[in-house]
């Protein structure tokens, strides 16, 4: 761990990229969350980031065994993207980033806004918290990752993610070794923020390749401050800071996000841009009750004990 941190430090110092905040290496070495800022006013929709993501992460893409196991009950359908690996206009197990485009008129001006879409790396990610199997988890540096060695492809993470980001490929993963016909259905895939590159002191491929420097990576608090500054200068709007209780992907746009949301194509693999309340809010509030229950139980037993003793004493006196 310390080796990769040191490497990270050296690597980032060497990059000299404007897309990396100077304090990033230190923050990473402190185990702080890193976030990315996306200045949507700069994105020209060239798709270089999408291609770079595909190339860089190709070695992680699924190589499914066919034919797929027969599924019971038969209404459970396998998800197969292996023959459609080139699809790049939505999220798939082979495409973890794509560009959404919105043509809008806002305050009398026409805009073409391009929005790179991928996992937002939530601060308290429901996909990870609700995974019953430990396959999805958050790392200290804020990356939310699905472990392809143990994911069973039940797609619960996709269901509970407010943007339904993870995508399934059948015919790969641990379920093939367990009960292939009766439980699980593959592995879920999504952006892992190029965790290997981060460990080696490199920035994510999509950030490095962008000709417009659309993205900046850095410690979350600095990225948030930068996003607010940028939004102020631009007279713009922010998405991702508060969404789902806070994410590590902060978009800044000259056009409000509810306007963009109406203008983008949405559907399977094409996430919305509407505002999202914290999915884990109820659990966060209930946690104190669960954790406090043992103490409360013991205290109640003790208190009834005391009152019983004093009652008994009272009874003794009365007799």
């Amino acid at each position, binding site marked *: 761990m310390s080796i990769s941190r040191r490497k990270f430090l050296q690597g980032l110092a060497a990059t000299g990229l404007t897309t990396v905040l100077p304090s990033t290496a230190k923050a990473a070495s402190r185990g702080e969350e890193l976030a990315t800022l996306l200045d949507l006013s700069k994105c020209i929709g060239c798709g270089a980031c999408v291609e770079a993501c595909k190339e860089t992460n190709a070695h992680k893409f699924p190589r499914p065994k066919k034919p797929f196991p027969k599924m019971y*009950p038969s209404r*459970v359908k396998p998800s197969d993207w292996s023959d459609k690996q080139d699809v790049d206009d939505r999220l798939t197990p082979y495409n973890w980033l794509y560009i959404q485009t919105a043509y809008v008129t806002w305050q009398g001006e026409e805009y073409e806004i391009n929005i790179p879409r991928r996992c937002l790396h939530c*601060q*308290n990610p429901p996909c*990870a*918290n*609700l*995974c*019953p*199997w*430990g*396959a999805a*988890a*958050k*790392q*200290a540096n804020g990356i939310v*990752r699905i*472990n392809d060695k*143990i994911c069973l492809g*039940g*797609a*619960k993470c996709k*269901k*509970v993610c407010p943007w339904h980001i993870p995508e399934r490929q059948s015919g790969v993963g641990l379920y093939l070794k367990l009960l292939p016909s009766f*439980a699980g259905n593959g592995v879920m895939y999504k952006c892992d923020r190029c965790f290997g590159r981060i460990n080696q002191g490199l920035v994510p491929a999509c950030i490095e390749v962008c000709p417009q420097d659309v993205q900046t990576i850095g410690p979350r608090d600095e990225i948030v401050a930068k996003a607010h500054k940028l939004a102020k200068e631009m007279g713009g709007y922010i998405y991702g800071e508060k969404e789902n*209780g*806070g994410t590590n992907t902060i978009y800044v746009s000259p056009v409000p996000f509810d306007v963009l949301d109406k203008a983008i194509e949405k559907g399977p693999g094409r996430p919305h841009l509407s505002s999202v309340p914290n*999915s*884990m809010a*109820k*659990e*966060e509030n*209930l*946690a104190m*009750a*669960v*954790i406090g*229950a*043992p*103490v*409360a*139980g*013991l*205290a*109640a*037993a*003790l208190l*009834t*004990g005391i009152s019983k003793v004093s009652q008994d004493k009272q009874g003794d006196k009365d007799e």
Partner: protein
Amino acid sequence: MNKQPKTIWSGRLFNFMVFGLMFTGMAQMPIFKRYYLADVPGFGWTADFYLNHILHYILATILLFIIFYRLGKFLRQPGREIELITPIGWVKIFIWAGLIFTGILRVLKNQPNIFFSPQVVVFLDWGHLGFAIILGLAALLGKILGQGYLRD
């Protein structure tokens, strides 16, 4: 008034809570939709992960209160029942401890300001599930052997 359950681990309310926890726990796996339960009219909620997660928290709160309340009372009368605990009873008690331990840590993990590494998360998730399964097996074995927590 002889309504007091015999041990910390019995009573109608206790059993109901355990059933509810097992059910909402199983609902954390994407199986109720796959295996048609959620298609039965009135059972659609069994496929609602968030709802079942919150129910699991609420039931856990009540059960933990009951267990620790009775544990507190039990500890106030030391030596009374300890020798009466059967081997199966001890096994189940240790499994309960593991289940509660991993469950509470899992709740902590879901808090925004608390962080566990991915390796610990796997350990907790598999542990919690594993303890639930072996508790069921131990309970079954107890039934077969006709052994409860306490000797008659």
